[in-house]
Every structure is written in C-alpha cells, then in structure tokens.
C-alpha cells in the first residue's frame, strides 16, 4: 500500500466520477481519458508493462478520440433545459451502490483466503509475444477476425444510406 498506489487510485476514481457527473459531454470525454491514464499507470505499477502500454495506445489513443468524435458529431440538443440525468437517476444510483457494496463485501470477506505472492514476476515483452504466438494464437486470430468484422460493421452502420439527408 504505497503512496503511489493511493495517488494513482485517487486519480482514477476522480476521473471516473468526473466522467459521469459533468454537464458538458466533452468534459466528460476528457475526464474519462484521465481515468484511462490513471488505469494505465496502475497497470504499470503492477508490472504489466505490455498491458499498460496497450491501454495507453488503444484506449487513450483510439477509444477516447472516437468518443470525442462521436460527441462532436451528435451535438444537437446538447445543453438542454432538462437535466443531464434521467428523471429516475436515484434508482440507478442505488443499484450502482448496491453493486459496489456487494463487490466490496465479497472482496473483503474472501481476500484473506488467497495466498498472495508479493514478488514481482519477471516478464518481458518477448515472453508476451511468445505466448501470443504459441499458446494464445487461436484467440489472437479470432480477435483479428473480430476486429475486421467490427470495422466492416461500423463502416456499414455509419455509412450514409441512399437518399439520406447528409
């Protein structure tokens, strides 16, 4: 429980909170980007270098930009009179709180049952690549296929249909 952890954790949580509560949608997008960054650093702290950098590359470099684009494209009645929250926001909040309570309780109850090693694993990117090509080659290929399909689907979905007003 180092200080670094606490700082990074605070950063992430703050970013997340900001993402879901800010009024301006673009501000939300930026806030979620900071949350992503905090998470990436947490990954790095956990000695998962590959995962951390992948997070930065993909999430911050692609998903966040995408979100911003989408926000910009769907501006319309953005800052409207009625609030950003749905009229039944309390129910949603309660449910979320319930989920957190459940998860926290589960964690706290059972965490002592697992033997934990504190030693850092000596993992290199080479090992990761090796694993990807040998043990996880099938998921790799499937994910490739999935990404292709997603790309094609996204293009089709977002494509301008014939006769549609641009």
């Amino acid at each position, binding site marked *: 429980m180092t200080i670094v952890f606490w700082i990074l954790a605070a950063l992430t949580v703050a970013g997340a909170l900001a993402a879901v509560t800010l009024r301006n949608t673009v501000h939300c997008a930026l806030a979620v980007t900071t949350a992503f960054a905090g998470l990436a650093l947490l990954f790095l702290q956990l000695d998962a270098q590959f995962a951390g950098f992948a997070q930065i590359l993909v999430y911050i470099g*692609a998903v966040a930009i995408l979100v911003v684009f989408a926000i910009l*494209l769907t501006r319309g009645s953005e800052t409207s009179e009625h609030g950003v929250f749905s009229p039944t926001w309390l129910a949603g909040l309660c449910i979320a709180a319930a989920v957190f309570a459940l998860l926290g309780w589960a964690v706290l109850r059972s965490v002592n049952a697992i033997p934990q090693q504190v030693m850092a*694993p000596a993992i290199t990117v080479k090992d990761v690549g090796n694993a990807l090509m040998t043990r*996880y080659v099938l998921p790799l290929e499937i994910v490739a296929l999935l990404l292709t399909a997603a790309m094609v689907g996204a293009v089709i979905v977002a494509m301008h249909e014939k006769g549609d007003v641009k």
Partner: protein
Amino acid sequence: MTPLAGYLLVAALVFAIGLAGALTRRNAILVLIGIELMLNAANLNLIAFWRFGPHPEALTGVMFAVFSIAVAAAEAAVGLGLVISIYRHVRTADLDKMNRMKG
C-alpha cells in the same frame, strides 16, 4: 488490507461509478463511456489477480486483459457508429426519447 484487496476495491469502485453513469445519464454516448469504465475496471481486476495470484509466468491475466482491451475497442467503435446512425434518424442522442422498443 492486502495490496490485492486495495486494487480490487479500486476496481470495484470504478466499476460502480461506471455503472452509475451508464444507468443514469441521458446521453447515449455517456452511457458508452460508462461501459468503457466498467470494462477498464474489469481489466484492472484481471491484472491485479495476475500479479498477486499463483503462476504469473503463465501470463493468463495479461493475455486476458489485452484481449479485453482489443474487444472493447472494437465494441466502442461499433457502438459509437450505431449512436451516430441513430442520431441521423431521430436527431437526438437522448436515450429517454428512444423508446421505439416500448412494449
């Protein structure tokens, strides 16, 4: 509180926040943002368990997390494409107004 527990709690908190956002915000894109947050929280969970769990050299957790990131990216792309497409039809991204599935 072990380090693992700390990470797990952080992940749980982020997950809950993301869920809250997904359930309460009116804007469809913000719902998607909430979903992304949830996925990320799950990734954190995975990495934490990989780090503090048995056999980290098997790289199971890392692999899982990486694939999760990839899939999440794809899903975000498609989802946002959908939102844009819907926006073209109804001129709004307000979820409360999209109740054509009302039974």
